[in-house]
């Protein structure tokens, strides 16, 4: 199912995040893929997902300016595609 910012997400339980100077490195223990979260803010967003009823609510909670939402949502869609994040319920 394609990414929908109005739906709830979480960090995939098979994925570990390793903090790095630029943000974090995400490793999927199932498909063995490495993904780079390229900013510290993106890491915060990913970690916040599970505490909010939707991806957009997570962005709002971190006071990400609304004009930046499209770029975050594109990045989250890519992370959903590579199974770094997945839908809840």
């Amino acid at each position, binding site marked *: 199912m394609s990414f929908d910012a109005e739906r709830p997400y979480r960090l995939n339980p098979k994925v*570990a995040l*390793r*903090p*790095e*100077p*630029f943000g974090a*490195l995400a*490793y999927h*223990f199932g498909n*063995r893929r*490495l993904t*780079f979260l*390229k*900013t510290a803010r993106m890491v915060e967003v990913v970690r916040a997902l599970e505490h909010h009823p939707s991806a957009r609510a997570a962005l709002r909670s971190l006071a990400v300016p609304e004009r930046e939402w499209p770029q975050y949502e594109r990045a989250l869609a890519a992370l959903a595609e590579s199974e770094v994040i997945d839908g809840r319920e």
Partner: protein
Amino acid sequence: MAASERLVEHFKTGLSAPICLTWELTYACNLACVHCLSSSGRRDPRELDTDEAKRVIDELQAMQVFYVNVGGGEPTVRPDFFELLDYAVGHDVGVKFSTNGVRIDRAVAHRIAAMDYVDVQVSIDGVDAASNDHVRGAGSFATARRAMDNLAEAGFAGFKISVVMTRHNVDQLDALKALADDYRAQLRITRLRPSGRGADTWDELHPTQEQQRQIYFWLLDRPDVLTGDSFFHLSALGAPLPGLNLCGAGRVVCLIDPVGDVYACPFVLHDRFKAGNVREAGGFTRVWRESALFTELREPASAGACSSCGMYDACQGGCMAAKFFTGLPLDGPDPECVFGHGERALAGVGAEERPSPGPGHSRGPVFVELTRRHE
């Protein structure tokens, strides 16, 4: 695009832990390949024992090194190989190990196929016994094929077949790919380095300029062939090859050798590039994060003699190890520079200017046949 460029800049200044860590478990090897990077053969009596190796794995887990490339020597001849494999996987450290296949019988193949987070890479250096055994020794092709048969029969899809590219196997690229496809395996080709025993055979074996172009265009058409990013010096020919296209030594890459010495990359086993030892206080973590050598390698590099070349951004001056072991300055062209700058520089290097080899564990003189194999 801006974001990925910035990411590469971060890679140059180092990460909290390596992305690509190679761990050679033993110098013992049943083969004596003429290009062996680590001059392997005899076991070193100072080898890390089982408990010490497990402590290294504990550290890797704490540093979140998610997987290691295990090699040697022939790692599977260690009596505790499977104990360490189980321990690593049980501690969130996945393993891809390189083998010549000597221990991969049917039972072992089934055991490996049943494990999560374990990947296998079987080495061959030619598509038939004649061309492979010329480099790797008599009988080694049959051994590798038997291992591949056993892995395939055990249902291990997607294992890797790893080939070092030499003057004698560039024309076999299509056949090597077909062999990998037959096994539903993945082909991986890497660059021959003048390291270890390779220092003695590089002149004879390294691909010609024409063959380098052949490799480059072949790879451009086949992004599914793995390379370990080892051909980035070829990116000066045009479009960049997939991968990081930079020397990751001490920045995202390093090597732990069988006695625990930590080197900047798997191709520079030499005192000049030794950063420390995992047995020292602070262990591997401290070597990675604080050693003087790795700190130096994370400083901005000068393009040196390459600064006037318009393609420096593409090739980054090539491979540090290739330069070092052929006696070239580290801030100059790669010996296999696609524009021939390396060949011209090499012409001015006397044999006495090449560095001494690193730690050698050859089982005696390896008689290198410096004659062309008969077709």
